[in-house]
């Protein structure tokens, strides 16, 4: 891991103006990802995981937009770049893998063409060289007989194979950062592990930084180096995987993992967090998690809300678990 992180997100805020007021699906989120490092991002549906990834790659759907904070990629600030400059960096410096391989490939264009157009957009190569590269990248992701299948259409591949093609597409211009937003959620359980292993291997080999969004704690445990837990647009906890998973500091993390030191006597047991995440327009004062938190106290219901740092180096909580357990 080099000293300077590949991606550095500083106090990122994404806002959506609505009739009911301004929503903040991403609220002052900060994290770094170093070369070759995999950051797992977890959290309930609607926590802002995809929104964060989309903000980094500059693909927020209007009316959502970045209103403050900074995004640094390879030492360059990219959140203020023009659409044109940002476009040049997509694919080349940041690759993205989407959730559903059945819908992320253009059904009417052969996969080889989708690869070569991407390669030729970013690298100064001839058509023949681009084709060679395309074949090589298909081989790398484990498409058998890549040279023969390069002119096939997406529908001629199975779901798992298509996701391999998607990964090849995301990596073909050798980006330094890959954002993988639930890359296996839409896949058959039997191929999920293979796809994750493939992604991990390729990124380790190339020293690519990875932001891996997933709902699967098992995947996080096996794949990620560090994990970011998101709740209602905020970072609840951010730290090395082993520490966060074995000894969560934030009550939400602990609830998410289904085992909570509060309720256990050594044996972890399945623990549903009561209630649901509040709507963005109706967040409580103080800690956003307080209505559901078993440890909430008066301080939690008053502003300012807790942030990572002041009370605990890794959890945004006034009364972190590690210390009292």
């Amino acid at each position, binding site marked *: 891991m080099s000293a300077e992180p590949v991606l550095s997100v500083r106090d990122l805020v994404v806002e959506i103006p609505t009739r009911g007021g301004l929503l903040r699906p991403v609220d002052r989120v900060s994290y770094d990802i170093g070369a070759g490092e995999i950051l797992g991002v977890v959290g309930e549906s609607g926590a802002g995981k995809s929104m964060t990834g989309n903000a980094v790659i500059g693909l927020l759907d209007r009316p959502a937009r970045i209103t403050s904070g900074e995004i640094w990629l390879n030492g360059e600030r990219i959140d203020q770049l023009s659409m044109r400059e940002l476009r040049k960096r997509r694919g080349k410096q940041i690759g*993205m893998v989407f959730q559903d391989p059945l819908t*992320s490939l253009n059904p009417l264009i052969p996969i080889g063409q989708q690869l070569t157009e991407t390669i030729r957009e970013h690298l100064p190569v001839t058509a023949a060289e681009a084709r060679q590269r395309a074949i090589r990248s298909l081989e790398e992701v484990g498409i058998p007989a890549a040279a023969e299948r390069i002119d096939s259409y997406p529908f001629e591949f199975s779901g798992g194979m298509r996701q391999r093609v998607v990964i090849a597409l995301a990596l073909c211009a050798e980006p330094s950062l890959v954002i993988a937003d639930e890359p296996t959620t839409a896949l058959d359980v039997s191929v999920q592990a293979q796809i994750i292993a493939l992604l991990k291997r390729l990124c380790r080999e190339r020293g690519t930084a990875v932001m891996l969004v997933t709902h699967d704690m098992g995947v996080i445990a096996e794949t990620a180096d560090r994990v970011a837990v998101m709740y209602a647009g905020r970072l609840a906890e951010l730290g090395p995987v082993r520490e966060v998973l074995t000894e969560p500091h934030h009550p939400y993390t602990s609830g998410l993992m289904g085992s909570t030191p509060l309720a256990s006597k050594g044996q972890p047991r399945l623990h549903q967090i009561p209630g649901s995440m509040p709507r963005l327009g109706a967040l409580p004062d103080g800690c956003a998690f307080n209505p559901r938190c078993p440890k909430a106290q008066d301080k939690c219901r008053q502003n300012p809300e807790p942030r990572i740092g002041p009370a605990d180096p890794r959890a945004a909580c006034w009364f972190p678990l590690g210390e009292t357990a």
Partner: protein
Amino acid sequence: MLAYIIRRVLQSLLVLLVVGLVAFSMFRFVGDPIDNMLGQERTVADIERLRDQLGLDDPFVVQYWNFLEGAVQGNFGISYRQGRPVAEIIADRAPATLELAAVSGILALGFGIGLGIFTAIRRNGFSANLIMTLSLVGVSLPTFLIGILLIYIFSVELGWLPSFGRGETTQIGGWSTSFLTESGLKALILPAITLGLYQMTLIMRLVRSEMLEVLRQDYIRFARARGLREKSVNFRHALKNTLVPVITVTGLQLGSIIAFAIITETVFQWPGVGLLFINAIQFVDIPVMAAYLMLISVMFVGINLIVDLLYFAIDPRLRIDGRH
């Protein structure tokens, strides 16, 4: 795929047979051709001779068969009114209609697809909204009104363009064209706009809504995420997917351009088959009407068939698992 094509061709033939039956039935049930062809001073012998000549005494099935046999060979009998072979009359008139329809079709397709894409890509822009609003006018005004309006503005008030006829034509082989003279080209403008406007707005609105739908798809996001240029995203990735559903409707619209030509040709006194048909109705000239009906249906069925085959060309999924 071959089986599919064969089935479609057979279906087309069936449609044509049915239309043929309708066209043929007119001979027997609409008016009395003898009345139409012979004047007041006719003798019984005259009538008999003509009935025999026209085969009016044969059994129904034999007459139908003879009609079909003739139709396939392009022989639709003799016009009651003009006393000339119908095929000859239509061949005289066809170039006018085909040229008009071709120009309108190209206008409708070109501007329809172009403006459809434009209004989809700039969906919140001022000019896109303006075009969309104007297009409502295009769909809601009846063709003849648009024609009259155009004539009023450009012929009567401004005096720029002629209000009727084809202008000077040039004869090339058996084909009379108005493409080669200035007055011919000028004469084409107003009728072509009148005829194509409705289809253009329809195609435009369709392309726009399909394109908007496609632009929401994941593969478009993914194309953007790979850093492809907007041009490539819009015109390579999006347009191709937009065209699949657009083709059907567009094909049918082009077919109806020829059918709608009747109105435009009447407004502009355009000497094509549409005007011929209107005149034929006035004089109950059944052979001409029957021939027109057959021609139009052949055109429709043909376009439909081409549209189906185009699907195969565009959508690879059909080519491979299209065995049905």
